[in-house]
């Protein structure tokens, strides 16, 4: 035959998944790929506008408040948010691993922690948004000046609220998915199926939300 024989005959010859995973996981991965392009487009747009501007506000002046401790604390609150999300990711991994071991109790426990983490993150975000709103920041309104003291355009807040809002929406839907997983676990749906693959897919989504935060955190709060 004129066409090459596939080198990896075992995986690609048909009749089975070449990736050793069921189709749902393949779909979830490629969905996350496409969602990465959604977020990528947002963040790259942010970068483009920032490169097109003569000045940009200093994140350390904008994000410097901590509930109960007042202001003058740059990076403090967002560090808390970041750690909450990392820890909730860890509990999600533990839930997935417990699922592998068919350990229902551990799945339930870790899912609950993950859900709590997600809600905590959303609460932090709600506080931060409210705080900024009271400072006069919103879509189409930017009370902060550029780092060099010149007048800033509104695009700093425009992008901040749009992108963190879109991320927050993902966290929110992730929490909903996790709650559904929790209910299904408690109803023994997965025990009956004999596997916890659904939790694995929910886990992928949850980690992706964490992954996006890594980029959002860097782009808006650090650099």
């Amino acid at each position, binding site marked *: 035959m004129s066409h090459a024989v596939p080198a990896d005959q075992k995986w690609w010859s048909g009749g089975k998944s070449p990736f050793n995973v*069921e189709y749902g996981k393949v779909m979830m991965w490629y969905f996350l790929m496409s969602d990465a392009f959604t977020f990528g487009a947002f963040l*790259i*747009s942010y970068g483009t*506008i920032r490169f097109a501007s003569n000045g940009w506000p200093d994140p350390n002046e904008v994000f410097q408040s901590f509930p109960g401790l007042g202001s003058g604390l740059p990076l403090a609150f967002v560090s808390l948010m970041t*750690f909450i999300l*990392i820890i909730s990711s860890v509990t999600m991994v533990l839930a997935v691993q417990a699922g592998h071991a068919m350990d229902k109790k551990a799945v339930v426990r870790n899912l609950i922690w993950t859900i709590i983490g997600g809600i905590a993150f959303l609460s932090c975000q709600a506080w931060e948004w409210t705080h900024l709103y009271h400072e006069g920041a919103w*879509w189409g309104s930017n*009370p902060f000046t550029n780092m060099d003291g010149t007048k800033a355009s509104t695009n700093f807040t425009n992008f901040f609220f749009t992108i963190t809002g879109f991320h927050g929406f993902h966290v929110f839907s992730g929490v909903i998915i996790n709650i559904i997983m929790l209910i299904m676990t408690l109803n023994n749906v997965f025990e009956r199926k004999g596997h916890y693959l659904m939790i694995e897919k929910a886990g992928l989504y949850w980690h992706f939300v*964490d992954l996006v935060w890594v980029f959002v955190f860097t782009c808006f709060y650090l650099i």
Partner: protein
Amino acid sequence: MSFTDNYQEVSHHHDFDREAARKEVIRVTVILTVITIVELILGFVMMGVHNEFMRHVIKGAICVFMLAKAFYIVAYFMHLKHEVRNLIMTIVVPLGLFIWFIIAFLTDGNSYRNLKNKYDPYHYEQSQIKVEKPAKSDHGSHDAKKEGAIE
């Protein structure tokens, strides 16, 4: 009717080493925490640095750490490292499109600024005027709001 309900594409064996997996999770958690702390330290250091070049160096370092964190999350938390090599390639290779995506967009953003500053000198002058920092009270006003903004 659904055919997929009947698909038995995956069959398990449950003898995977949970203890080793748990250790790996702890290791990765520690790594992620350390990287985040280093990033925060760099962020604090940058507040005191006013040299443009040094600031760019620090920002570059932060971006490298960001990618490292992304790698650990995808590789271990999302388990990609333990998947079949082909799956890894189909995920990683398309991400390469981001390279040109980012370069082209940012280059053009930068060029937009330069062209505008050059051909619209009024815009450039205006963007160099320092403004009084508005006093920020907690009941800060939305007076500064632009027209047409959402309430």
